[in-house]
């Protein structure tokens, strides 16, 4: 059972969290966005081996945050609250 650091609640069991996708997958707005760009936003994921930046939500308190972690060692490197980070 991994321990994830919720920026609001501190370290909690991973079962309290839900994965929210890659961080930095900025939403392209508008109907003129090229199809492949939109498809990339919807479906293409980096799935990196090693350091990954991901959005997670702590379902207990509702905090969405960016967590950096190592997908091989499961080491958590950092976590920081979001505040309109992906505003277009």
């Amino acid at each position, binding site marked *: *059972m991994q321990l994830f650091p919720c920026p609001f609640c501190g370290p909690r069991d991973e079962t309290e969290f839900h994965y929210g996708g890659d961080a930095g997958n900025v*939403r392209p707005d508008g109907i003129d966005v090229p*199809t492949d760009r939109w498809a990339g936003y*919807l479906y293409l994921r980096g799935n990196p081996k090693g350091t990954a930046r991901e959005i997670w939500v702590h379902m207990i308190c509702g905090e*969405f945050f960016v967590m950096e972690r190592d997908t091989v060692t499961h080491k958590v490197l950092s976590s920081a609250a979001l505040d309109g980070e992906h505003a*277009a």
Partner: protein
Amino acid sequence: MTASRLATGGSAIDRSRPIRFSFDGTIVQGFAGDTIASALLAGDVAVVGRSFKYHRPRGIWGAGVEEPNALVDIGGSRATPNTRATTEPARDGLVAKSVNATPSALADRNAFLDRFARFIPAAFYYKTFMWPDWHRFEPRIRAMAGLGTVDADWTSPGMADQINHHCDVLVVGAGPAGLAAARLAAGAGLTVTLVDDQQSPGGSLGYRAGEIDGKPAAVWVKETIAELAAGGHLILPSTTALGIYDHNLVGLNQRHFDGRPDTLWRVRPRQIVLATGAIERPLPFANNDLPGIMSADAAFAYLRRHAVLVGRRIIVATNNDSAYEVAGALAEASAEVRLVDIRRNGTPAAPANARLIKGRSLASASGKLRVDGVTLDDGTRFDADCVLVSGGWTPTIHLFGQAKGKLAWSDARAAFLPGDPVDGIAVIGAAAGAVSLSEVFAGAGPAFAPLGQTKAPLPRSTGPKATGGILPAWPIPGSKGRIWIDYQNDVTVKDVELAARENFVSVEHLKRYTTLGMATDQGKTSNLPGLALMAGITGRTVPEVGTTTYRPPFTPVPLASFAGARVGELMAPVRRLPLENVHRANGAVFQEYGGWLRPAHYGGYADAERSIADEALRARQSVALFDGSTLGKIEVIGPQAAAFVDFLYYNTMSTLKPGRCRYGFMLSENGVVFDDGVLVRLGEHRFVVSCSSSHVAAVHARLEEWRQDRFGRGAVYIHNATSDMATLTVSGPNSRKLLKALGLGLSLGDADLPHMAIAHGSYAGDEVRITRVSFTGDRSYEISIRADRAEPLWAHLRKAGQAFDAVAIGLEALMILRAEKGFIVIGKDTDGTTLPHDLGVDGPRVKRQTEFVGRRSLFTEEASRDNRMQLVGLAVPQGEAPLPTGAHGIKRIDGRLRSQGFVTSSYQSPTLGRPVALGLIERGATRHGETIDIQHLGKISKATITAPCAFDPAGERLHA
């Protein structure tokens, strides 16, 4: 008599407290402090079980968790199958039964199977029972092979406790290494938790010679435990560390032996110290599985702890130094001991009174139900009533392996040792390959180094020094006779050779093909000999062959322990209505809908279908009362609330006037309709999102996500008020009259409260919100009130409603009413491909100029396809029964049947006197009037495509 209890000694037993228990129907006597195994040995019970496949007699092998043979089903109040007799305390009145034996281990009626052993090697089942169908043979084979029996009638005596625990240092194993580390860590001011799988601490210090800091080892153990206890440190005996999980969470299985279910501990230590010791390996020789052949170390433990002498004429066979002390102790206890060492040179001195035979190994053992002698490799034969073997030591590095620790092969120890260190874990003592107490204590010092250092000196071993000399004695390919590798699963040298011949040479394949290392003991004694043999067969070294993956649990753990409180209703708790008890008193029949327990219908008639039809019919005739409290009520408040809901909804919501409501869809980013519902605008900067009952949590999370990831926390605030308020719905032609009778203190005139508007009133001093929306197609009012004040309002509605023949309706009747109107339920009348324009709502897609979730996805090639499945109504020919939900609309293309959509909702409408149905049909919106074939379970019927709405299409009843 061969094995017997000595007149004196036995550090674990209390001779003043005799006990009696039953084994295979025979009474066995022992003393408090005995394990089932030690009491059976003291009573000279040699055969304690039958093997998995061949039903070979099996005797006690070990004295701990590694036991492959002595498994018993414990009946009576606990009924636990496959319990290790070596770790289970003997208790008065306990009922134990051997495994895989009928009627008893001694007189097993399937023992004849061993004569056919040569015909049933590894993988025999896979090759033999392929035709016509394995399942025809399975029941009989399962009855004949296997281990313990699960008692189907047994239920857990109570919920198993689960405890979360934190400490600085968790020490696993209370042998010399663990005790030293625990004592030093406590001395450094750290909080320590010490666990050990035996009932009393000490490990090998309980029987092997030792003198620590000038005191006998037993005294040092006692003092150390007393010191830890006095310091407030937690000491858990009879507790096994079952696994190390991510981020160094350690699971512990604590046994109680008093009828209580096992306790599961989840421990988060800052540092884990694994002092888990090592397990003695068997030696390979023919018939090495006979009862009476056991681990030399175990025999030593029984001698010292339980005063049990395992035989009178004992052969001790070894390839290493550790058995010498055992041979000496047994000889001293007046047994006739021959020590057979495979090594010619470099052995320790012969123990007093034991005969040492150097440079010889055992070729075979003889005997039927127990061993009666051995033959050496030079042909010499000795009679014996007990054969003790020591094939070397396998460090218990399972937990280290689970934590993804890499192993390193040691030629000197002929074993895998822990390799590169893992963060937060130290392996010490015999588990790290240490042999002498000095080596053990030297390792204990730095075990918790990351957390600090102690100033206290290390314990000093002042007694004799143990040595670790060993000459590997792995099973040799091509050996004669039946040489067992895995006692528990009946895997012999020949089975491993067979696996190799058939190219199952990877250890993971070897394990699954032969079952080597499976079942309750997970190969604690057999894995290393098995893979060493595979190395020999394939010309590789042992590290080249490698080990199988270490996975939890280390020892079997009852499922009840993992379940904890999550049993029965708590397995998946339902959400409950504030008025549940009131509805029950009114005869409601409850069902679970999307996680909520709600009235399906009220018991108007004994027959559910008739009750539902009656409710739906009377709802149209006069007035219906419905508990809609589960409907989502999520408030969106803040300076950017209007822009926020505009972005979240498919429909433009910012143009809504305060006090008004609008129906709309929420889409996913892929354009698919995610939820529908009514949005209420309470004020300029305040909205209430009214979402589907089962979607509240998901919609709430979605709102939070866009708030935090796009708009910013200052833009809006979101509050889920769903359970704060109860919502009672009054629907039907007489709904306004009934509402008037309540006296809510507001004007109900259509000018003041038109359809899709809200108003505020009060009831018994509490503010109520009236929302005039309709899911039935009739004039409807939703009254929202504080959840804890809803009961009098509901009672008042029921009472005042009598004048109008008001009827309380459940969810089933509501489903009929909404289907009559063609109103959809998301997820039922839509699927994971349904876009808003498939439901006939194309306006926002065409007209909206502002951004919203899912927008771009509505303009893809896929979204614009002209043969999309669209929402339709389906009418059946007069007199026919309702269409089955899920039935497919079909068409023929080149003579082959193809689906062109399916029925999503289907009911008998009591008001219309005919079935109504909704469906998703290809191009359905343009095919009204067309009759298509509907297929269900091979039967084909007809249905005509219509508009979704079958009742009051002009919507006049909303205002009636």
